[in-house]
């Protein structure tokens, strides 16, 4: 079976690339203008002005390597439409501009395709049965990654370069799975310097590399063997990371602009929640606060005039005060995040379970940061969903968690595409992906019982109800004028339940295997 090769892979990759071309004219978000502005900044201004430029509201807030990436793109952009590189051309979107930007996303997705191929190589084909290609883990993983619904609508409709970035992440993970740790570390360092949101998962890398790479052996019971510390390896890792960071931040440190760059990268003036609440713990916290406030006013325990203006659910990004529950500051979120990921880090320190244990820890770091982070974007759920696909094709329990998390997470991305024209696209694509993931994973892990607990199935059916309400019933109802935020609130809160549940279940799988030491 393995001998007839991977001929299906180019077909999948070419198919999805052509498919992406169909959506060049679809809805674009403000992120399109953001990237066009960055093309203009990097092309028209000298390096010393890149992080000072603020004539447009979309200032450069990604690390320097990404700025260099945009600089490289701008040289190609010149051949499509030179006008897009002019700084004052705000919201410029001529057809060649749109074509160039969309094509740049599709082409840079090549990194993601490469990474998928590497990940598929790490996943074992089931030699036992003569199953058809469609039922083999590599094929299923390739579809789950290449045709991932969330990545597709965020990158190719909403507009971002996540495919390019996730390519680095997955490639790094694949390298670790293949025991090539220096390459994995190099790729992650590059990724961090492209988009610093991946700091969410840096602790997992740090602890894993220190524990499993710098300490070359473990003792018989899986514990640490202090004697096996390899200074050479530590130095190698350190130099790789420092080299990459040096290349990226070097010019700015020399120019003394490091504080300015950092202030752009970490703007804490923004609120606890994004304009649309990401389905995390703070969404539940906010909802609870609102409920308590409403109940308090009804029961005359609170005076309505004393409450801060209820603008949290409006579309603006500001700092807010909670009405009843204590307010949350950035440092509180940091503490909560660290507390949530500490058990996972401790677990792989004490008993490393090889690269797959590292992957699990990475997922928990991503989810923990998603749950408790400051100003989290709902798109960050993809950092958990994509790597989880690798575990889903290998383990039954992970497949169940994947189905719940991916369906919930993908649905939480629906509010990103709010135009009526895109409604059939997002519904059909979501159905396609969900149908495939459910059927393929069920067939792959066919054994006793279904992958999902009845309660989980009920939850997912409830998700369908929420979808029906938000997309169809609510726009046609009279409440649309008075409570415009209701669908967003409902989506956000309902999805947080699912995401929190998946977080806890994933933790359980890590801690459970902690108590049974196994060598991979």
């Amino acid at each position, binding site marked *: 079976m393995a001998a007839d090769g991977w001929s299906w892979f180019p077909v999948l990759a070419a198919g999805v690339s052509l*498919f992406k071309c*169909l*959506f060049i*004219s*679809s809805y674009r978000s403000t992120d399109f203008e953001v990237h066009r502005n960055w093309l203009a900044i990097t092309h028209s201004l000298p390096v010393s002005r890149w992080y000072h430029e603020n004539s447009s509201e979309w200032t450069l807030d990604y690390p320097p390597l990404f700025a260099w990436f945009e600089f490289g793109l701008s040289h190609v952009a010149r051949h499509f439409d030179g006008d897009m590189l002019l700084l004052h051309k705000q919201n410029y979107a001529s057809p060649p501009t749109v074509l160039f930007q969309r094509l740049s996303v599709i082409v840079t997705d090549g990194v993601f395709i490469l990474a998928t191929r590497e990940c598929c190589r790490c996943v074992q084909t089931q030699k036992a049965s003569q199953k*058809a290609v*469609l*039922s083999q883990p590599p094929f299923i993983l390739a579809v789950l990654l290449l045709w991932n619904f969330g990545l597709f609508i965020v990158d190719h409709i909403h507009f971002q370069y996540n495919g390019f970035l996730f390519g680095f992440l997955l490639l790094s993970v694949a390298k670790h799975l293949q025991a090539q740790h220096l390459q994995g570390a190099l790729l992650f360092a590059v990724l961090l310097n492209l988009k610093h949101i991946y700091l969410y998962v840096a602790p997992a890398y740090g602890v894993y590399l220190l524990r499993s790479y710098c300490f070359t052996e473990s003792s018989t019971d899986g514990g640490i063997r202090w004697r096996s510390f390899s200074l050479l390896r530590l130095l190698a890792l350190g130099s790789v990371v420092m080299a990459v960071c040096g290349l990226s931040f070097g010019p700015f440190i020399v120019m003394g602009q490091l504080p300015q760059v950092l202030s752009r990268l970490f703007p804490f003036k923004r609120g606890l929640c994004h304009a649309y609440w990401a389905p995390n713990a703070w969404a539940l916290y906010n909802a609870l606060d609102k409920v308590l406030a409403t109940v308090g006013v009804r029961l005359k325990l609170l005076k309505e005039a004393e409450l801060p203006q209820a603008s949290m659910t409006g579309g603006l990004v500001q700092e807010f005060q909670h009405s009843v529950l204590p307010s949350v500051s950035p440092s509180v979120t940091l503490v909560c995040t660290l507390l949530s990921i500490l058990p996972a880090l401790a677990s792989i320190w004490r008993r490393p379970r090889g690269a797959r244990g590292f992957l699990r820890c990475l997922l928990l770091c991503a989810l923990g940061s998603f749950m408790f982070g400051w100003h989290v974007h709902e798109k960050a759920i993809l950092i958990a969903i994509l790597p989880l696909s690798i575990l889903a094709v290998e383990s039954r329990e992970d497949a169940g968690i994947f189905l719940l998390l991916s369906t919930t997470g993908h649905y939480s991305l629906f509010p990103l595409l709010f135009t*009526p*024209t895109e409604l*059939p*696209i997002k519904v*059909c*694509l979501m*159905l*396609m992906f969900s*149908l*495939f993931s459910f*059927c*393929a994973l069920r*067939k792959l892990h066919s054994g006793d019982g279904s992958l999902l607990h009845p309660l989980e199935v009920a939850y997912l059916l409830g998700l369908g109800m929420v979808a029906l309400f938000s997309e169809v019933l609510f726009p046609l109802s009279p409440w649309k004028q008075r409570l415009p935020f209701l669908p967003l609130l409902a989506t956000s809160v309902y999805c947080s339940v699912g995401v929190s549940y998946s977080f806890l279940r994933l933790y359980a799988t890590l801690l459970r295997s902690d108590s049974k030491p196994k060598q991979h």
Partner: protein
Amino acid sequence: MQTWSLISICVLLGVVVRWGVSLNSYSGAGKPPMFGDYEAQRHWQEVTYNLPIREWYFNSTNNDLAYWGLDYPPLTAYHSWLCAYIANIINPEWVKLHKSRGYESPEHKLFMRTTVLVADLLLFIPAVVLYCLYLTDGSSKKKVSVLLCILLYPGIILIDYGHFQYNGVSLGLALWGILGLGLGWDALGSIAFSLALNYKQMELYHALPFFCYLLGKCFKAGLMGHGFFLFVRIAAAVVVTFALCWLPFLSDPVQALQVVRRIFPVARGLFEDKVANTWCSLNVLIKIRTLILVFTLLAVLPSSIRVLTRPTFWHFKLALVNSSLGFFLFSYQVHEKSILLAALPVCLLLNDLPFMSVWFLLASTFRYSECFFSLFFYISVAAMVGLSITSVTLDPPSHLPDLFPVLVSTTAYLLFLGTIIHFNILQFSGPPSKKSQKKSN
């Protein structure tokens, strides 16, 4: 994976691809005074909604036939009326008499594109799914592959969802007709095909094979016994269907005649645009009508007579291809979109003659879209690609401005000519293969 889930995924993919294409511009967008097919359809909604039936096909101050007058049979008019009824509920501006001429807006585009998708979901797509499930041989994987290929055939997607038309309705109804005949439900199949004919007169391309196949079946079943009753049943079904469709126009012979005059306008020119048609290639501008008729009949009669003598489903499908291709290549006044009528029966042959079918479908798309879907195998495909690329990237020499369209037409014509010869040979060669003998009913 289970068949139903694979089929659902294919259908969903087909729908998304269609909708993706529909995001782009339609025919005649932003081009006053005449605009294009999109405006024609909108205008028909305006006319059918605001005027009484007896005025639909006549020239009057309220209905200027020179501006996209109705030139399809009554079922199209009824469909337009239905769309207009819904349009009026959503926004009356869209179908206001006279005032809505040239109306363009993003909401209106969404509405119009939705009507095309709804029609496809109700008629074309279910017919394709049922055809692949019940009239295609092979494993379930093979059936799903055929389904995927037919649903993703670019020609019909580009014309219906890009340019803007409702070919999905007429082709869908024709496909229901073919389904009926394939499953042995001749009367129902005839009703479906009659409806297709009453939607677009272009379906006449398929009429001869239907007629010959059914007549052949009646002969075979014995004109003195079963065959006679079959004949009467089919004839009654067809007559009643036609009568019901034409009911409002039958009260007055002038009405009926006017409709006929509108749907068969012999006053128009020899060919529309630059069609891959014999006459275009020969660049003959003389109206040699009898010669045209002779050539057309020569092209289509042999296969139809063959199916009359051997009324099996296999021969029926081949005859559909030959007949529609023959009419496309040789008849009077052809629209380039008529190649779709040949593409549909070729799709049905995907399972039996995969290579030839795929090649033809590529060629037909090439003709329509001037590039996208080409594979690098065989000289003909290489030629198609070469021509496509040069016609898109290079400018033609100034003294030959129409060079590329004419070259494309000529190449496509030669390819289609080869196709019709090949399929005719197939129809007349040896006994049909074992598996298609099962299908004779």
